[in-house]
C-alpha cells in the first residue's frame, strides 16, 4: 500500500470501519452530542483517508487529541468510571484508534475493543432486536478479524463472513452451557456502577397530586401475569402496592407502620376461591412485589407487612418471576387499636367545608356503611370529571378539589375520599397499585403497564374488616373496565378509554402487538430472568438437589470439556473434503471404481486409472472415458472451469454404477 503509511490493506481497514460503526451506532443517542459529533467526524475522516489513501495523521496529534478527549469526558461527567462516563470514554478511544491503524496489532486491539463495546450495549438495553443486532455486529467484527489474519490473500467478502458465522456457530454450544450452568449470584456480581439503575419507573413510596397521573402516561410494562386458572373478573383485578397511611394534607406516605411478619396473619380469612398465578415483575428499584388483592402466599423469600403487602428483602432491580396465591374475597378481622389510630390521622388543617360535609353524612345515617355510600353517591351525582391532566390545586388540595376544580385523577379521588372518611370517624387509608391489565391472547397472559397505575381507598368497617372502596369507579366506572388510551388524552379533557375496536386493520395491528409482546415475554422469562432462582429450579429438575458452588463449577467444567472434546473429535474424524467440486466428483468416481474392484493407487493419474478400469470392466468403457476426459479437461485443461461442464461431470459421476452388476 504505497502512500497510506500502513501495513494493513484498505480492505481490512474498511472492514474495521464497518465493524466499529455498527457497534457504536446504538450508543450514539445516549452519548453527549460532542462525542457523537467526534465519532461521526472521525468515521467520515477515516472513510476519506481510505478512498484517497492519504497519509495517516501524525502520532503526536493523535496523542494530544486522546488526552484532550479523556479530559473532556472527565469534566463533563465528573468521573471516568461508571456506566455513562466509562462507555463515553471507551467510544472516544475506539474512534480515535481508527486513526491509528498501522500494524496488525492495532487492528486486533480495535477488534477486541469492538467486542467489549458490544457487551456495554447490554448495560443499557437487553431487548431481542438489540440482541439480534449485536449478533450481526459480532459476525462483522469476527469477519474483520478474519481479514486481518488472512491479510495476504485476496478473498471474497462472503468468504470472511462465512468463516465468522461458522466460528460463532461453533461457539454456540459452549455459550449455551455457560449460560445455563455458570453459577449465578443474586445481585450485581462485578459491581455494576451506581448509576446503572437510573431511569427505572414504578410506583413511589409516597403520593402527591399528579404523581400517579404522570406515571399513567407511560406505556412501559410494569409486570406480566399468567393465571393458572380463570382470570378474576375486572372489578377484582386490583394489584396491591404501597399502602399510605399518613398525610400532611398534600403528600401521602406510609407513615410509621413498620410491622413485618413472614406470613399472612391468621386473622385474615378467605371468603372465596383462591387465585393462583405467576408474576414477571420488571425491575423498579423498590422492594414491593405486586400481587393481586389480597396477597396470601408468595414463592419468594419476602416479608409480609401489616397492611397486606409482600416486600422483597432487596430492591427489585432486575426482572424477577414469582408465583403467588391471592384471595380476591376476604375478611381481615379485627383492627388493632394502634392501627385504628393511624387510620384516623388527619392533616393539621382540615377545612370547615370538608368537616361539614363529613358531619352532614354522619348525621344522616347511623352506620359507617351508609356514610361510605353517601360519599360515593356524592362523587357520582356532583359534576366530577376524571382526567389525566387535572388543574393545579391550591393551598388545601382536598378542599380545592372537592369544592373548586372537581377535576382529578384517581389519586385526587382516593385522597379526598380518605380525608372525608377519617373526618367522619371511619378508619381509612390510601392504597396504590395497578388496576386492570390487558389480556394477550397470543401468549395467554395479562400485561399490566405503568399506565394502569391506580390509587384507591380502604375503609375499615366493623362487619367487613378492611374493605376496598374505589371512588374513581363512582366517577368513571369505565376506568375499571377499560385501560386508558394513551394516544387520546387532551389537556384538561375527560380521560378517554380504550374500547374494543372493530376495524379489521386495527384488530390486526393489535394482534401483531400482542404477538410481539408474547415473544418479548418469553425472552424475558427464559433469557433475561434466568437468575439464581431459575437456575436452582432447573438444576433441581436435572437432579442436582441444592447444588453447591463447587458442584456447579465442576459440572460447568465437565460440560464445557465435553463440548470441546466433541468438536475436536468431529474435526479429527471428519474426512478432509477438497473444496474443488471437480476433485470432489473425481474422488467420488474413484470410490465407485473401488467398489467395482479397481482401486486407484495413491499416485495414479486419471489416464492410467481409466485404462485399468476399462480393462477390468470393458462394458463401462464409454462412461469411464467420458468422465475421465471431462475431468482431465476441467482439472488440467487450459480454459477456466465452466460451471456447465462441472455439472456435467458431477451428473455423470452420479449416474456411474455404484456396484458391480
Amino acid at each position, binding site marked *: 500500500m504505497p502512500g497510506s503509511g500502513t501495513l494493513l490493506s484498505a480492505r481490512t481497514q474498511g472492514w474495521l470501519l464497518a465493524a466499529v460503526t455498527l457497534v457504536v451506532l446504538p450508543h450514539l443517542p445516549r452519548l453527549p452530542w460532542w462525542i457523537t459529533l467526534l465519532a461521526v467526524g472521525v468515521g467520515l475522516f477515516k472513510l476519506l483517508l481510505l478512498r484517497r489513501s492519504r497519509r495517516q495523521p501524525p502520532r503526536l496529534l493523535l496523542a494530544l487529541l486522546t488526552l484532550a478527549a479523556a479530559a473532556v469526558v472527565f469534566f463533563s461527567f465528573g468521573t471516568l468510571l461508571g456506566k455513562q462516563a466509562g462507555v463515553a470514554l471507551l467510544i472516544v478511544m475506539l474512534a480515535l484508534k481508527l486513526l491509528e491503524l498501522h500494524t496488525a496489532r492495532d487492528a486486533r486491539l480495535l477488534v477486541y475493543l469492538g467486542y467489549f463495546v458490544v457487551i456495554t450495549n447490554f448495560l443499557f438495553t437487553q431487548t431481542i432486536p438489540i440482541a439480534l443486532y449485536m449478533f450481526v455486529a459480532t459476525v462483522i467484527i469476527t469477519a474483520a478479524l478474519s481479514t486481518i489474519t488472512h491479510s495476504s490473500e485476496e478473498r471474497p467478502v462472503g468468504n470472511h463472513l462465512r468463516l465468522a458465522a461458522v466460528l460463532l456457530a461453533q461457539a454456540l454450544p459452549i455459550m449455551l452451557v455457560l449460560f445455563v450452568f455458570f453459577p449465578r449470584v443474586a445481585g450485581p456480581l462485578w459491581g455494576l456502577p451506581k448509576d446503572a439503575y437510573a431511569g427505572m419507573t414504578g410506583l413511589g413510596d409516597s403520593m402527591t397530586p399528579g404523581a400517579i397521573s404522570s406515571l399513567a402516561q407511560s406505556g412501559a410494562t410494569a409486570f406480566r401475569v399468567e393465571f393458572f386458572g380463570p382470570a378474576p373478573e375486572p372489578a377484582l383485578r386490583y394489584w396491591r402496592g404501597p399502602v399510605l397511611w399518613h398525610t400532611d394534607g398534600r403528600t401521602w406516605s406510609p407513615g410509621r407502620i413498620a410491622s413485618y411478619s413472614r406470613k399472612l396473619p391468621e386473622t385474615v380469612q378467605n371468603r372465596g376461591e383462591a387465585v393462583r398465578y405467576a408474576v414477571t415483575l420488571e425491575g423498579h428499584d423498590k422492594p414491593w412485589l405486586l400481587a393481586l388483592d389480597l396477597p396470601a402466599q408468595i414463592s419468594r423469600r419476602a416479608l409480609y407487612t401489616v397492611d397486606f403487602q409482600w416486600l422483597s428483602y432487596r430492591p427489585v432491580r432486575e426482572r424477577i418471576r414469582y408465583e403467588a396465591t391471592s384471595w380476591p374475597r376476604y375478611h381481615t378481622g379485627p383492627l388493632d387499636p394502634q392501627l385504628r389510630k393511624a387510620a384516623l390521622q388527619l392533616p393539621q388543617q382540615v377545612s370547615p367545608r370538608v368537616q361539614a360535609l363529613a358531619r352532614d353524612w354522619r348525621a344522616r345515617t347511623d352506620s359507617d356503611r351508609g356514610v361510605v355510600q353517601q360519599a360515593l353517591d356524592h362523587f357520582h351525582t356532583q359534576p366530577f370529571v376524571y382526567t389525566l391532566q387535572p388543574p393545579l390545586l391550591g393551598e388545601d388540595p382536598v378542599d380545592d378539589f372537592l369544592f373548586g376544580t372537581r377535576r382529578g385523577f384517581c389519586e385526587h379521588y382516593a385522597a379526598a375520599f380518605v380525608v372525608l372518611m377519617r373526618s367522619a370517624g371511619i378508619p381509612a387509608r390510601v392504597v396504590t397499585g395497578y388496576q386492570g391489565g390487558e389480556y394477550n391472547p397470543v401468549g395467554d397472559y395479562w400485561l399490566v403497564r405503568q399506565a394502569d397505575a391506580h390509587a384507591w381507598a380502604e375503609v375499615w368497617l366493623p362487619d367487613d374488616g378492611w374493605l376496598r372502596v374505589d371512588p374513581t369507579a363512582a366517577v368513571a366506572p369505565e376506568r375499571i373496565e377499560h385501560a386508558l388510551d394513551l394516544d387520546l388524552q387532551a389537556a384538561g379533557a375527560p380521560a378517554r378509554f380504550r374500547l374494543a375496536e372493530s376495524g379489521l386493520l386495527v384488530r390486526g395491528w393489535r394482534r401483531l402487538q400482542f404477538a410481539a409482546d408474547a415473544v418479548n415475554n418469553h425472552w424475558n422469562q427464559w433469557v433475561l430472568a434466568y437468575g439464581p432462582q431459575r437456575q436452582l429450579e432447573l438444576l433441581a429438575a436435572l437432579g442436582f438437589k441444592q447444588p453447591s458452588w463447587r458442584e456447579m463449577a465442576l459440572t460447568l467444567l465437565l460440560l464445557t470439556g465435553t463440548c470441546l472434546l466433541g468438536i475436536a473429535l468431529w474435526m479429527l474424524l471428519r474426512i478432509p473434503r477438497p473444496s474443488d467440486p471437480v476433485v470432489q466428483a473425481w474422488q467420488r468416481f474413484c470410490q465407485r471404481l473401488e467398489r467395482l474392484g479397481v482401486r486407484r493407487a*495413491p*499416485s*495414479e*493419474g*486419471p489416464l492410467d486409472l481409466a485404462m485399468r478400469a476399462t480393462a477390468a470392466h470393458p462394458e463401462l468403457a464409454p462412461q469411464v472415458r467420458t468422465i475421465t476426459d471431462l475431468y*482431465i479437461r476441467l*482439472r*488440467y*485443461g*487450459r480454459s477456466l472451469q465452466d460451471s456447465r461442464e462441472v455439472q456435467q461431470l458431477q451428473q455423470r459421476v452420479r449416474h456411474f454404477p455404484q456396484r458391480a452388476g
Partner: protein
Amino acid sequence: MLLDGIVDRLGDIILGKEHQLRLALTCLLARGHLLIEDLPGVGKTTLAHSLAAVLGLHYQRIQFTSDLLPADILGVSIYNRDTAEFQFHPGPVFSHIVLADEINRATPKTQSALLEAMEEHQITIEGETRNLPQPFFVIATQNPLYQIGTFPLPESQLDRFLMCIELGYPDAKAERELLRGADRRTLLAGVEPLMSTGQLLELQKGVDSVHAADALLDYLQALLEFSRQSPRFQNGLSPRAGLAVLHSAKAWALLAGRDLVLPEDLQTILPAVVGHRLQAAEDQAANLTGHERVRLLLESVPLP
C-alpha cells in the same frame, strides 16, 4: 500425425524399443541432451543414426578415447599458405546430432569441452565465438561396466543431460525379428527424411505452449518438496531439475498429441529425467538403481 509417423518409422528400424525411442524424441523436442548408459551392441549408434536419418539432420559420431583432445571435437585453425591466414576447420561438434560414444573414456578436459558446447549451444575458439547449428542434439553413451581406465562423469556434469536412459536387451519377439530381418545399415540407407529442419524447430517451439495447469504444478512441487524433505535422498532435486521435469513432460505430452500435461506424462518421463540426478541417502540401500529411486519418490507422493 507427423510425430506418430516418425515414431513408427523409427520403430521399424529399432525393434521393440518404442518407449526409449519416444523418450529420445522427447529429449530432442525439449532441446535437451541424452545420455544412454548401456552395454555395447544394444543399438545406441543405430538409434542416433536413425533419428538423424528420419528427421533429415546432419549426424556425426565421435568415438571418445583417452587421447582425444578438445580440438578433435571442436575443430582447429590451420594456416593457409595461399591466403596467408588461419582458416577454421570445424570439428565434428558442428552437426545437428552428435553421438559421443563412450564419453567416459576421454579425459575430463575433453569431456568438459563437449559439455560446455552442449550447455551454451556455441563454442569459443581463439577468441571467436561460433554458433552451433540448430537443432543441436548430443547423444552421449557411457558403458557402466569395465570402469578401469575411464573417467566417469561427475554428478554435476550428469546434470547437463536432460535425460539418462538405458536401452537394454530386446525381448524375444523383437530379437527374432532382428535376426530374421535385413541389416540395419541397409535399412537406414533407404530411409527418407519425414520432416524438415524448420518443422522440427517449430515443434521445439511448440513444446513451450503446452499447458501445465495449477493442479499439475502443485503435484510437481509436492514431488520436489518431498525429495528435499525426505531423509531417503541425499540431496533434493534442484530448481533446474524441476524445470527439466516440466519441460520434458510438456514435450512428452506434445509427442502424445495433447496440448496439456497430465500427471502421467510427468510420471513417465520422471525416471529418465530424475534418475541420474537423485542420490539415495548413504544409510539407505545405496545400491538402488536410478529408476528404483524414482519409483520410491513417486509412490511417496499421492496425487489428489
